[in-house]
């Protein structure tokens, strides 16, 4: 057992840190309603990483990636978060969903066309998995695709498509065989978002922002060569996609969370407590902060343990779901603690002062236990796949 990194890994860290220090954008990332500006900012940053040789650290070298080992990926994401580099949002699906899925299951033609565009920051990808009636029960999806000649003709509706209104391509799950058992009649296809018959409507979320969309398909024609993997084998491809989602990119979250606990401690020293004095002088708030930091440190230890298990066995273990669930609920505990520390300032909406930042984090954090599989689904996965409990 060892909690130090090897000399080679430390050298990798030094390189990553130096490059990030010199290259992380100084100008602020656009926030708010202007998604086009956000897209431009993120793609410019992606291009910069590409030129510096740091695009797609987890991607194999033969596809233009860095080919970093699992432990190097951990280090990269730690340094990435530590440097305050831009959060990965508009480029997430391309880099962490579609790209790895194409590498694993795509045709040579698909890989040759799409992978360089994703890595260079030419395009944004979005996801088209969920539907109004297929959320946690994804396999019940109903969006139909009928084969006509060399094309699929798609009709139906997708929902919760982040950045759908600024994306070029979509990873789209469609039902290509309505007669087959529900897991066997699905295909994973590449959909160009500018195809005729696509209608994209933004959905305002409870935070007030509009990056979510619903997407309607009315006779949308997609070439059959855009099917990834085999026709009707899309469920298996989609499970691979979701496996990549819980990959190493997630690791930087614990670094961000550790920083938030430190920021919160600083806040607790500066705002009044519930019974006079400073918030940090309140025993309960102080203990909850200490517990929060202990849990963040536990999250880091769990991450390292999980990665070292994967290095040893060659496959990601079931602890990934445990970490995902623990993280999502920990974020929410810390968000609630922030509002408790803030006191009355938590419910004021003033541009100046700390209230808005933490209240926005709290509201945004409510999605942590919904997106990417609700906490209830995560508990089912842990119960059934890890503990072997009956369905």
């Amino acid at each position, binding site marked *: 057992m060892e909690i130090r990194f090897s000399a080679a890994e430390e050298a990798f860290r030094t390189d990553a840190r130096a490059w990030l220090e010199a290259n992380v954008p100084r100008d602020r990332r656009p926030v708010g309603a202007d998604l086009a500006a956000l897209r431009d900012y993120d793609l410019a940053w992606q291009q910069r990483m590409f030129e510096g040789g740091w695009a797609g650290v987890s991607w194999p070298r033969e596809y233009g990636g860095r080919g970093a080992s699992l*432990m190097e990926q951990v280090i990269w994401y730690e340094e990435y978060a530590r440097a305050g580099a831009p959060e990965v949002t508009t480029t997430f699906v391309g880099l962490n969903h579609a790209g790895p899925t194409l590498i694993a299951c795509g045709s040579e033609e698909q890989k040759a066309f799409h992978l360089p565009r994703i890595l260079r920051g030419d395009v944004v990808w979005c996801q088209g998995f969920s539907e109004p009636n297929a959320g946690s029960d994804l396999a019940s999806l109903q969006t139909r695709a009928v084969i006509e000649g060399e094309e699929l003709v798609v009709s139906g509706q997708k929902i919760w498509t982040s950045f759908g209104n600024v994306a070029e391509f979509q990873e789209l799950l469609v039902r290509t065989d309505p007669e087959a058992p529900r897991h066997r009649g699905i295909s994973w296809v590449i959909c160009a978002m500018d195809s005729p018959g696509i209608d994209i409507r933004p959905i305002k979320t409870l935070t007030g922002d509009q990056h979510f969309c619903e997407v309607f398909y009315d006779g949308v024609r997609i070439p059959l060569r855009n099917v990834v993997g085999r026709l009707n084998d899309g469920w298996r491809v989609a499970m691979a996609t979701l496996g990549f989602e819980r990959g190493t990119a997630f690791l930087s979250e614990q670094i961000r969370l550790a920083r938030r606990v430190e920021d919160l401690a600083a806040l607790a020293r500066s705002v009044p407590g519930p019974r006079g004095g400073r918030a940090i*002088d309140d025993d309960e708030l102080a203990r909850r902060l200490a517990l929060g930091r202990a849990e963040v440190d536990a999250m880091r*230890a*769990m991450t390292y343990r999980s*990665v*070292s298990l994967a290095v040893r066995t060659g496959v990601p273990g079931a602890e990934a779901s445990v970490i995902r669930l623990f993280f999502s609920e920990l974020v929410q505990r810390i968000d609630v603690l922030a509002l408790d520390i803030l006191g009355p300032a938590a419910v004021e909406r003033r541009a100046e002062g700390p209230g808005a930042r933490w209240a926005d984090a709290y509201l945004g954090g409510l999605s942590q236990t919904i997106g990417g599989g609700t906490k209830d689904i995560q508990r089912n996965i842990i119960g059934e796949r890890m503990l072997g409990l009956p369905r």
Partner: protein
Amino acid sequence: MDLTFSPEQESIRDAVRGVLADRIPPPRARAELAPDPDLWREAAALGWFGLGLPEDVGGAGYGLPEETVLFAELGRSLAAGPWLGTVLATHALAAVPARREKLASVVGGRTRVAVVDDPADGLGDAIRPGGTVRGVADGDGADVFLVLGERRVRWVPARGSGVRVVVRESLDPTRRVVDASFTDAAAEQLGAEADSLRRIALVLVAAEALGIAERTLEASVAHAKTREQFGRPIGSFQAVKHRCADMAVRTEVARSLVTFAAVALRDLEPEASRHAQQAKVLATSAALANGHDNVQNHGGMGFTWEADAHLFLKRAWLLEHAFGTRTAHLEALAAPWRAG
């Protein structure tokens, strides 16, 4: 970076688990209050007390991570006896060449040591302790008390002059406690640092709590797979399944942090002390919550004396009160933020 068990650590775990399973079948864990002398001898013969000592002083040459493997197994089996004090004593004695004879006797299983945690010097700060300490775990079977004061570490023969021991019942029927009174008791000071022994103790107690969390998770899952109601195993119901999932999360939290803290302490990492406290807090939380849920998951049987479920929960409470409660540690961990 590697927080997995090495093949060697796995074989230590399997060997310890095998011996404890043979020596302490579940019913005996309930009935046998005094430490089993045969088990103690076997443990000494197998080198358990010297796991973390260098080979040149009669140890196995491993470190704290391997000792946590041992203590997790002791927790799983609800082993009785002053294991903690005895292992701590080997660390206290190994630091001083002049104590090699005592060390050999402890490592060899001939001297059993119970630890008295006295961080505020309630027994005074002189070499000879004076006063009473309540609730010393496993004090009845001990030959020596290892008294950890604020700074001093003292070696106090339990049957020496000025020592009176009164056995008390504790919440946990598998672990007796004593009130130990010292009146100008015969004692000698060991040249070890009390705080560094306390850090080791925190990690070992956390490891024992981890063992409880693991064992109760396994018991609940096994029960949920076989117990049927409404014509199906109760583990198919989400209310039960999700409770088991939460037990698994707590166990993984405890396991990761205990392992991390043990390696950090072994390697003298600057933040090791913080991690030791955090491991104690989260591992005892896991043991308490899993112990509680395990009673619940067993339904009516869980509430009986006959079932084992209550024993794990009761042991968890003793561990919570060993070497500082969660409340005390969290306040200590928050103290740097509150200063100034």
